[in-house]
């Protein structure tokens, strides 16, 4: 019997699902090697099908997306019980991801922003003796490991085909990586960046620029051009896709194992290269970083040390 595998999405954009499809021919190998027992985006299985499975009967569940409502939490818990291995798939599951920026607000503020003073969704709807209820919308978006135990992390927004294939290979092979491992190299992205050698040894910057304010040179280190590229603090694995597309790294692969708070550390590195010794000089340099939380915690606010903006 082929090992059973499940895919599930929580608070995510769907890009991670696309990434699985992007495996190309490799996906045929996957399909040959495993039995996909649950994949709502592609295959018609129901929640009750999963609930009916014996505990531990699934080899591995790949869960993408963050946890931002009660249904997602329940599904995560169910899959955890049914699976030998749970993989947090992609930035949102690993770190909280882009949806995690909602942690700068709370549920009330978000609903107010979206619905204004108009009609609000009803939590329970009754019709002909039947009732339908909406899941609870949390104040705080959580990374997957805040609600269930996670065995492996697959970083990226989304994880690249190469990273996914590598992970599948590792999981199906004999030598499982140590529990808790992030299945990507444990050094920062500069290592893989073709522009690496163009960074001057002693780089200091009087000002930063935002990507829309300039047309960056195609070859030179983006940080050296004044763009707040987070490659120096971001885990490698994507092979510098964004810098190769002439855009600075925004940190979707998250930190290395030696860093606890991606944003705080990235902030430290960026601030350190500012060429200014007074508040005024520093403030001028920081004009192009109008949204530090969005810049440094773009993918990792829920997994940061603070986790969210303080409420109340």
């Amino acid at each position: 019997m082929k090992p059973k595998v499940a895919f599930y999405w929580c608070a995510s954009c769907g890009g991670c699902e696309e990434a699985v499809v992007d495996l190309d021919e490799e996906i045929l190998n996957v399909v040959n090697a495993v039995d996909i027992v649950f994949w709502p985006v592609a295959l018609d299985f129901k929640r009750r099908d999963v609930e009916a499975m014996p505990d531990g009967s699934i080899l591995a569940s790949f869960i993408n997306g963050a946890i931002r409502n009660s249904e997602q939490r329940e599904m995560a818990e169910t899959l955890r019980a049914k699976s030998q291995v749970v993989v947090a798939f992609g930035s949102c599951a690993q770190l909280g991801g882009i949806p995690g920026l909602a942690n700068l607000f709370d549920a009330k503020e978000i609903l107010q922003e979206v619905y204004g003073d108009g009609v609000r969704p009803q939590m329970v709807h009754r019709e002909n003796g039947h009732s339908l209820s909406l899941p609870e919308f949390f104040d705080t978006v959580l990374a997957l490991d805040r609600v269930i135990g996670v065995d492996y992390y697959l970083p990226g927004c989304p994880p690249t085909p190469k990273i996914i294939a590598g992970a599948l290979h590792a999981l199906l092979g004999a030598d499982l990586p140590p529990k808790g491992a992030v299945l990507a190299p444990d050094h920062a992205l500069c290592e893989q960046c073709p522009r690496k050698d163009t960074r001057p040894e002693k780089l200091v910057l009087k000002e930063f620029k935002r990507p829309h304010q300039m047309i960056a040179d195609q070859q030179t280190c983006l940080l050296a051009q004044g763009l707040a590229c987070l490659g120096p603090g971001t885990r490698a694995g994507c092979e510098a896709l964004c810098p190769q597309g002439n855009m600075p790294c925004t940190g979707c692969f998250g930190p290395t194992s030696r860093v606890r708070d991606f944003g705080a550390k990235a902030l430290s590195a960026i601030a350190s290269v500012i060429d200014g010794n007074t508040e005024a000089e520093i403030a001028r340099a920081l004009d192009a970083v109008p949204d530090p939380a969005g810049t440094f915690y773009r993918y990792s606010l829920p997994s940061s040390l603070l986790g969210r903006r303080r409420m109340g």
Partner: protein
Amino acid sequence: MPEAFEPKIVAFFCNWCTYLAADLAGTSRIKYAPNARVVRVMCSGRVDPQFVMDAFAKGADGVLIGGCHPGDCHYQEGNYKALRRVELLKRLLRQMGVEEERFRLEWISAAEGERVKIVIDDMVEKLRALGPRVPARRQEVA
């Protein structure tokens, strides 16, 4: 009657200026509020913003960084590095709902024992006025 709220401050003091200033306050028997706990670092430039985040995450009511005056750093310019990080970190903390009174960088030279008192007493007073702070982490549902 409920006990008066006493804030707790994590203070990162550089070995050569502010830590010595606190030593001097001691030998001079200057009395000040007992709310700060000093973590000694060699230089204010060693203070990783992660330490500040960690302190707030673990429930500190305030974080104070003490370094040598500009131009006086024992390591020439570590305090400027601290200043750059602090300026950016302040903006981030504002977004994270941490009031500005909770995070301070102060230059206190080894000769300024009295200033240790002034700064800590002032900070404690302001934190008392702000009231207790529930760390954001504990506000999560899950």
